[in-house]
């Protein structure tokens, strides 16, 4: 009877999986995904399709309101086209958000995996460091660093990442701590696999769900933080546009030219809420507890 070979069920395609079905069933998450895709495409291709360059100063058309002539979103106090500036700023803001997320997730994951798998004093040292970072007021830390260091986009990205990796580390640490008790990890030790192999090639792929969710939410947070520091004048420096420093420049004209503030504000809101929707959608879709009937 044991020689009987078994027939296998047909292989399921990835788009037929429950995770994908649950994600596509969540219209808010789909909306978020669509908005982000649109925004990203617009930022990549938009500037070269618009009639004006983002740095072109048209003094005759200062303070033009939206939908006046070729200036679809109006102009700023120097007569620069807001549509062009918004999309150029979007490039910077989205890039800062994305790379800050990448750095933060990478750092958080490595710390979390090592702390979670090692346990003992390694865990204590690493996780108390995380607690230490968390106990600093983020904004204060951000501003202090931004003042002390050269505020280039790269530096801003690194600073934001340094204030955002702790969440990821905590999530990963908890996940790894529960995963390492599973028998497949013990099987890995029985096979004589190395520690690094077990940590990063056996355990880590099983913790990807929560990491992806945390990463999505980190992008939203990073975009918001960048806008915040730039608005306060310590972030991305003009003439390089970012959504934050566009808001900064709009302050004194709030009464006379409100569109200067409203347009970048709406862009930030759309980007942040869309990433949050995607994050929530992924969290629900990856929640395995819903797999049981």
């Amino acid at each position: 009877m044991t020689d009987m070979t078994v027939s296998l069920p047909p292989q399921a395609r990835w788009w037929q999986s429950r995770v994908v079905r649950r994600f596509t069933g969540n219209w808010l998450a789909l909306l978020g995904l669509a908005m982000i895709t649109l925004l990203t495409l617009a930022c990549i291709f938009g500037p070269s399709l618009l009639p004006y360059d983002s740095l072109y100063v048209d003094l005759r058309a200062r303070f033009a309101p939206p939908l006046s002539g070729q200036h679809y979103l109006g102009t700023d106090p120097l007569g620069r086209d807001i549509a062009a500036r918004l999309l150029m700023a979007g490039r910077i803001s989205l890039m800062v958000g994305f790379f800050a997320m990448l750095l933060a997730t990478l750092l958080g994951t490595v710390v979390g995996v090592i702390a979670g798998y090692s346990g003992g004093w390694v865990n204590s040292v690493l996780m108390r460091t995380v607690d230490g970072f968390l106990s600093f007021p983020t904004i204060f830390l951000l501003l202090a660093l931004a003042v002390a260091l050269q505020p280039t986009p790269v530096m801003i990205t690194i600073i934001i990442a340094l204030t955002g990796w702790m969440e990821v580390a905590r999530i990963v640490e908890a996940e790894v701590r529960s995963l390492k008790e599973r028998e497949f990890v013990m099987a890995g030790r029985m096979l004589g696999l190395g520690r690094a192999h077990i940590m990063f090639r056996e355990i880590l792929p099983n913790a990807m769900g929560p990491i992806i969710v945390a990463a999505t939410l980190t992008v939203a947070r990073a975009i918001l933080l960048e806008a915040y520091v730039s608005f306060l004048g310590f972030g991305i420096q003009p003439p390089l546009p970012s959504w934050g420093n566009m808001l900064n420049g709009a302050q004194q004209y709030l009464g006379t030219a409100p569109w200067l503030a409203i347009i970048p504000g709406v862009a930030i809101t759309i980007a942040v809420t869309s990433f949050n929707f995607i994050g929530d959608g992924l969290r629900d879709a990856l929640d395995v507890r819903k797999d049981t009937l």
Partner: protein
Amino acid sequence: MMAQPVITPATAPEAAPEIALSVRGLTIALPKSMERRYAVEDVSFDLHRGQILCVVGESGSGKSVTANTLLGLLPKVMKTTAGSITLEGREVIGMGAEELRDLRGRIVSMIFQDPLSALNPLMTVGAQVDEAMASHGMGTAETRRTRTLELLAEVGLPDPKLMYHQYPFRLSGGQRQRVMIAMALALEPTILIADEPTTALDVTTQAQILKLIRDIQRRKGMSVMFITHDFGVVAEIADSVVVMEKGHVVETGPADQVLRSPRHEYTQRLIAAVPHLRSEDRPAPAGSAEAPLLEVRNLVKTYASGSALLRTRRVVPAVQDVSFQLARGSTLGIVGESGSGKSSLGRLLVRLMDVDSGQILFDGKDIAALPEAEFRSFRPKIQMIFQDPFASLNPRMTIGGILTVGPMAHGMKAAEARAQARDLLKLVGLDTGAFGRYPHEFSGGQRQRIGIARALMFRPRLLVADEAVSALDVSIQAQILELLERIQRETGVSMVFITHDLRVASQICDEIAVMHKGRIVEHGPPSQIFQTPRSDYTRELVAAIPGEDFQRAAPAMALN
């Protein structure tokens, strides 16, 4: 054919049987994405008053779904599409939620497989039994308290007054199940449904709980529907039997008749697969004359928890002064109940845990105290098969990856490892197409075969199998045991086979060591353990094996 109620009045006990529960043509649809359309299809049977009806089947046979339907506890995604259930003359299908609630507890009660998750961890035992009565508006606080104490005494719990104030986590598995039974009895139901109530328990505890259910049923004249996968339990307790396979009833009849002359081929197969005690010894393996492959001397392991500084330190001895030898090519069974230290012993042997003191001589060399880096070269020679086929394979790796990752980490070439993996898949009875698949695509038995193939990738000298078959259905269990036996014949590997099931151990072991509270209390060939046990504990264990009378009475049939 199977829709007919087969139990005829002539074979039932003396008093004219009255029907307490009748199920007719019950069909329950599954959601579309599942592998079959119906959870159960056209199921019919009767539960006679004052009888114990066993519903037997393997996992996925639909036995639990049937039981849950009786109480209206079906998950929302399943729909009853046809049939009727008559409980004490009342139709259950289509009954409103309020009416059903009134029925539950008062007319029908249920006890579950896992008493720990069925009990509320934040309520005392007494409060939970009390609540069952209070929610149906029975008695006053005073009378309910008295009744609760009576019930706790009735189910054989020691010192009911003290027990009343205990929380579930303080109790042992058997005690928790007794509390569940007390709760189920609180409203004096006429029908009791027991869904695998002894599966999670040790064999001696199982024997006690079975006796308790039988006693209470007799005393109160209750009707019991008992769901189980174990024909040994059926033989202990059943008056009549319903056998289910893949959602269909394939055989019904009085217990004696079904056990001794099963008519349906599936029932015959199930009964034949029940591991029965084999008390003859296996022929001595070829290597038994040489020096032993493994010798364990005075092994000790204790677990410590808490902190010495805060004086909360608790020390639990897991393995105490254990010594044994294992001859080349032979199998040693380590048998014991939960908490006996048998799994700790297994983990010490493959060095997944560090030894406190003692020696493990593998081929003459002490490996107990070797640092991990030096022990690494021994890992290929000592491999382990794990208990839970669902947890022991990495869900994110393909079967090919799972099989080849170990040998490749020890320097085997990728192509060679892949070729060997394919050979081993064939050896353990799997299609080589499994190579690129993920674990979730396989059933429990198939996964356990993969686990075995993984352990064989290195051509090990010693296999430690930790409860390797206990998570599997009996028919699958028999296949896996046969596979292990064949592998041993072909490769000459020595095995340490850890199990809680004496029947399984008797099937495959040359020698058996019985463990109790961390010590080996008896060690010898199966003939000694099962026929002339020397220690009281072994005697108790052997006596508690369910259904042995029926096995002894019909050994010829069981072997067929």
